[in-house]
């Protein structure tokens, strides 16, 4: 939500500081076409000189970011505040979908909604899920009724009794539904929870492997 004058080169090209050389190139081409004088997307919004001024910024950004050496020098001057340098809501990836690429790509996580709900960042473990459920004034049975998931499994999810839970495909579905039900962003929460689940499962398997030897 920064005015153009305060945006850094990455923000001008609408790409990430982690972008590869190819991504920079793509972002640059995309920006040029968006801010050309006869741009269909822009002509009715731009005032006199807007597009030209922006193109100048785009060229400048590209000159810096397309040269590995100059880019790393520039990166060093950026404030090391990731919150500030990233665009607000979603990682903008102006990839150009042709044919089948569109729609099958995973949806970006709305990081915003995510963080403002809870101050203490970190994984979504069972305890944290329980916390959100209680904060919403809900019983396990309420969630079970809405999600149609067996309440015993919901309890196991909160208690992280991973060994008693079914296959991870089901658990992911359960956690997504649970999270949605308590007003969280299901996909992101499930991803976080499943990282713990998978890690534990791997350790479990490894342990068994050594035992069997």
């Amino acid at each position: 939500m920064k005015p153009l004058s305060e945006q850094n080169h990455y923000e001008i090209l609408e790409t990430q500081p982690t972008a590869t050389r190819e991504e920079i190139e793509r972002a640059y081409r995309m920006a040029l076409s968006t801010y050309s004088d006869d741009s269909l997307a822009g002509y009715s919004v731009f005032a006199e000189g807007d597009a030209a001024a922006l193109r100048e910024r785009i060229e400048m950004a590209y000159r810096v970011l397309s040269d590995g050496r100059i880019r790393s020098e520039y990166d060093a001057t950026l404030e090391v505040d990731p919150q500030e340098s990233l665009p607000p809501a979603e990682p903008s990836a102006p990839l150009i979908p042709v044919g089948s690429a569109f729609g099958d790509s995973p949806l970006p996580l709305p990081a915003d909604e995510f963080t403002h709900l809870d101050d203490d960042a970190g994984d979504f473990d069972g305890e944290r899920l329980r916390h959100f459920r209680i904060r919403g004034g809900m019983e396990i049975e309420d969630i079970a009724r809405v999600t149609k998931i067996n309440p015993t499994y919901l309890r196991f999810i909160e208690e992280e009794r991973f060994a008693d839970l079914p296959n991870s495909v089901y658990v992911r579905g359960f956690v997504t539904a649970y999270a949605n039900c308590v007003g969280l962003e299901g996909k992101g929460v499930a991803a976080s929870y499943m990282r713990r689940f998978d890690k534990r499962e791997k350790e479990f398997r490894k342990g068994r492997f050594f035992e069997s030897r």
Partner: protein
Amino acid sequence: MSDRLNRLAEKLRGGPDGSRPARLIPVGGGKGGVGKSFIVANLAASLARMGYRVVAVDGDLEGANLHTCVGVVRPRVSLADFVAKREEDLGKLILDTPIPNLRLIAATDGNLAVPQPNPSRRVRLMRELRELDADFVFFDLGAGTHAAVMDYFMIGDEGVIVIAPEPTSVENAYGFVRAAFYRRLRLAMASHDMRKIVTLAMDQRNERGIRTPLELLREIQALDPDEGMRFVETMRAFRPRLIINDVRTADDIKLGFSIQSVCRKFFGIEAEYLGYVNHDESARHSVRARRPLIDVYPRSDAAIYISRIARKLLADGAPGEYREDSI
């Protein structure tokens, strides 16, 4: 506060039978003829085919044709009955369509003298829409940026804007985004003075020379930091979703990303590019056949693109999504 929490919990718990509230998706676009009704009919049919219970509501009381797109010939009741207070229960205006799981509220036979509901009736309509018994409710808005249309669009943050890749449609789409945003903003402002400034900025030739939401934000931040915060919150919550219809070239596809970029850079608004539907002759045939494309030519390109958009909507969290997984 605890009242609010209780209400929220109530909502999350769902109705007495455990049902969740429907997802309400208003579809607008500013310009007529860009394919809003076509998109609504087909997104609705697509979700219905996946087994979700869908109600498509025609909100275009002065140019109703959604009924034709979903294959209902002469609707015997319509939204006009609700507007004219002949019927209080919106649920009673629901009609079956030839497509299983897809039902319709038509907008035919409106009163030519008083086509639009008055403001209090509008509020009631929006409440009734929320209470419809369905998984998804699509609300097909008429053309233009009339106050009624903007109110309907603000019914949630899920509003979809349909755009055709042509100057007239793109211009109107921006007008639509701006109108929706300013209206929402005016509601969000707590003080009368700030509301007045928003109203002033809504006049495109205002004396302060405020051209874009971003410029308005600077102005408000300078005058009242608290209101500035509310402004930023409103800005973040407002995420119009874009569909580009009738795409013929790669440039047409890119248009969605370009509009996204312009919205971000010039308005400070994050729009989401939901997808595009390519130009397809079979689309015209389906409208002639008065059936959704998804129904008559499910294997056509356009039908496939529409189903993708439907799946993307689902990925945002569908009501009752894990029904079949229940043990």
